[in-house]
């Protein structure tokens, strides 16, 4: 672009200075809040006041941050699930459904198996069952992808709707094992007490948050250092090179998708052992699976960064929701606008991290001929 005597252009950076990795997200966040503030202003509320209230209720108060950590817990898992698949250029869009299946699987284990088991066996078992069911839910898309090359995007997405109807059927459509037998009101049956985890004190943060964080850090380390992580990065970069080196694309594709499904399933399990304690159709309303994809994208598919972006997102949601409970309620859609602009600015900021803005005088050369 040339304006006057100046030429303005984006130039790819050869290397990214370290400070930019922190500065770009921080600035993106700032811009997102400015845009959000404009919208808040349009609704007739004070932008600064509302935003500071949101920050306080989302992050800066004990109640706020513990609520946020609680709802970030499953979000970290779905975020890890999306990031894990994406690292191998696989797009698992089915975290939502896999999470529902995780909830169903965990509830089943919690009702049927956990009976007389002590907590330290029951809880891990319930979590494991959820993860297994999440993995099973992606088995078909994974096999289709690995064996026939069918796009996993469509097949995993379609299964979300199947999973959704499955949950509805178990609670509203039938009187099966997942339904609370003590009342005619359609709600889930509570799992065994031994299979549940209490929250920390009076907060809504559950110990599962520690598992989620440990998983993120463990995965980060594992994928960086292990042979498995290495093979997936070779395959993601160049399938031909992987074949040349004798790696099996079927094994890698299958295992990555299944593991991604397991992580998403775990999100559902954590919901069961923690706040819900049962198959709870409430989970269908929150969209934690889809949000996981956004959280992963925002974290640029870095497992550790997923922790932060999940907390950021959960806080916007918690803070946004709590704004409604005030003398002068702000519409909840403000939280959605904020989430959207955070994403947009983060992706836009990426351009400036990769490129450098150069402004140069256009030089004129006189021609001797």
């Amino acid at each position, binding site marked *: 672009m040339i304006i006057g005597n100046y030429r303005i252009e984006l130039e790819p950076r050869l290397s990214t200075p370290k400070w930019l990795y922190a500065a770009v997200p921080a600035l993106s966040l700032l811009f997102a809040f400015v845009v959000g503030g404009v919208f808040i202003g349009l609704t007739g509320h004070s932008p600064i006041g509302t935003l500071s209230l949101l920050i306080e209720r989302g992050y800066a108060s004990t109640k706020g941050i513990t609520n946020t950590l609680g709802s970030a817990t499953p979000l970290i898992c779905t975020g890890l699930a999306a990031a894990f698949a994406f690292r191998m250029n696989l797009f698992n869009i089915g975290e939502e459904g896999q999470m529902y299946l995780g909830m169903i699987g965990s509830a089943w284990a919690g009702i049927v198996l956990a009976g007389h088991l002590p907590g330290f066996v029951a809880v891990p078992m319930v979590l494991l069952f959820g993860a297994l069911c999440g993995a099973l839910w992606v088995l078909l898309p994974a096999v289709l992808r690995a064996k026939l090359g069918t796009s996993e995007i469509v097949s995993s997405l379609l299964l979300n709707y199947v999973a959704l109807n499955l949950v509805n059927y178990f609670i509203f459509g039938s009187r099966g094992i997942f339904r609370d037998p003590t009342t005619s009101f359609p709600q889930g049956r509570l799992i065994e007490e031994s299979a549940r985890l209490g929250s920390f004190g009076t907060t809504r943060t559950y110990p599962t948050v520690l598992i989620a964080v440990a998983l993120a850090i463990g995965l980060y380390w594992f994928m960086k250092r292990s042979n498995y*992580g290495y093979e997936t990065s070779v395959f993601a970069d160049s399938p031909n090179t*992987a074949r040349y080196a004798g790696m099996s694309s079927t094994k890698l594709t299958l295992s990555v998708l299944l593991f991604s499904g397991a992580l998403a399933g775990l999100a559902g399990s954590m919901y069961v052992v923690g706040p819900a304690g049962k198959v709870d159709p409430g989970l269908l309303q929150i969209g934690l699976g889809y949000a996981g994809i956004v959280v992963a994208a925002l974290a640029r598919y870095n497992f550790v960064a997923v922790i932060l972006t999940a907390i950021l997102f959960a806080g916007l949601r918690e803070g946004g929701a709590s704004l409604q409970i005030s003398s002068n309620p702000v519409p909840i859609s403000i939280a959605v606008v904020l989430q959207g602009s955070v994403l947009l600015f983060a992706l836009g900021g990426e351009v400036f991290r990769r490129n450098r803005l150069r402004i140069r005088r256009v030089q004129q050369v006189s021609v001797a001929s």
Partner: protein
Amino acid sequence: MGSHRSGGATLFALSARQVTKRFPGVLANDRVDFDLLPGEVHTLLGENGAGKSTLASVLCGLYKPDEGAVLRNGTQVRLTSPRHGLQNGIAMVHQHFRLVDRFTVAENVVLGHRKLPFRLRANDLEDQVGQVAERFGLPLDPRAVVGELSAGQRQRVEIVKALYHGAEILLLDEPTALLAPPEVEKLFETVRAMTQAGKSVVFVSHKLGEVVDISDRVTVMRDGRVTGSVARGEADTRKLAELMVGRDIDLSPRRSRGEAKGTLLSLSNVGLTKDGVDHIAQVSFDVRAGEIVGVAGVSGNGQRELAEIVAGLIAPTSGEVSINGERVNGVGTRNVRKAGLAYVPEDRLGTGLAPSLSIVDNLVLTRDRGFLVDRKSAHAEAEAFIAQLEIKTPNALTATRKLSGGNSQKVLLAREIFAAGNNSRVLVVCSPTRGLDVGAVEAVHKLLDEARSAGKAILLISEDLDEVLTLADKILVLYRGSVVHEAMGDQVDVEAVGLAMAGLS
């Protein structure tokens, strides 16, 4: 500015004056002067990264120079786009083609034409396109779908496209890189037909041999600068090589100095039949320790299949391959490697190396990695290779795709020949210097020669006959999947080999 003719009044069809073009971190063109006479073939010669494509792109309007000017018939033009260049009669055929695969030849050719009638009559277009093609000796079916054409044919489409749009000046960026020898000859005829019609051609190349044949003048570039300009007749390959590389280059034949020892790789009656077609038929030969057996032939005569069979990527349908006495038919790449094979595939960046991964990570690709990858020793190894083989790279963690062709080939060869834990004794190398400049060719040949001296059995499969003649102790010619000619490296009848490659023996 001095002109090349006495009197100084020559009107150049196209010139560059003091053109400078920067890319992040590189000065791709540094005050370049270049002049093109009407009706001449002017070659731009230089190593990879010398700045040839950049200059050509500036001349055709794709890039705007940061400084300097482009002159058309002596007056300055400020080209804003390739289309604008074309309006000034300048067209470029890029190194990587820019065609729409799903369109027919005729559709691709007229694409981008501003004055097309509202309703296209396919027949008329096809006739017009056919006429242009015929006039310049470019056999081409206007109705063929581009996606189904060979590289040579696609290139013809690009040339016809330029001519159809009225190009007076054609810039061909490494047009011979993808062509087989007979196609190159055909291209040269077209170029001559164009200059006879008064058009000028800028021919970009880094292959010394062909340059001397076709050019009226050669301008040599190195590191973004013009290092010399030589007229037809004054140009000999040695001098040009020196201008290109900045030092003396030794491309004289290298042969085994010792006695070849026991057989390490052996093929007997190997055949590959797919869908009733014989891709490889009854191929038998041995490669012994300390020798290079060269397989020559025009590309597409089974070289690739042969290499992949030996490397274990595909299993032969008949016959037997053995490495070090061990039968390895269809045991898979990993096991073939265990049996002692190293393989340098033709496609270095997409197959031999993972392009976005670092040099370090590429060195561990063929190692036994265990549960955790040991990058520490690989890093030390990478640094040793960088120093020893003079690999030009910012550091060992640079992605291989950021290296030039010659340097990435060095990484690949280093891994396949010298890397720790690589106890291979047999090396299969395919077109190792394709697309590399003379300096890098020399380095690669030296490496292969060293590997031979170190007692490896090397199978060199290359479409570049000169390369095979330079290195091989024994030469086989592959034609339609069969070995049709055999000769010892130091007593080759080049003519007989050429005939055999063409299937005429």
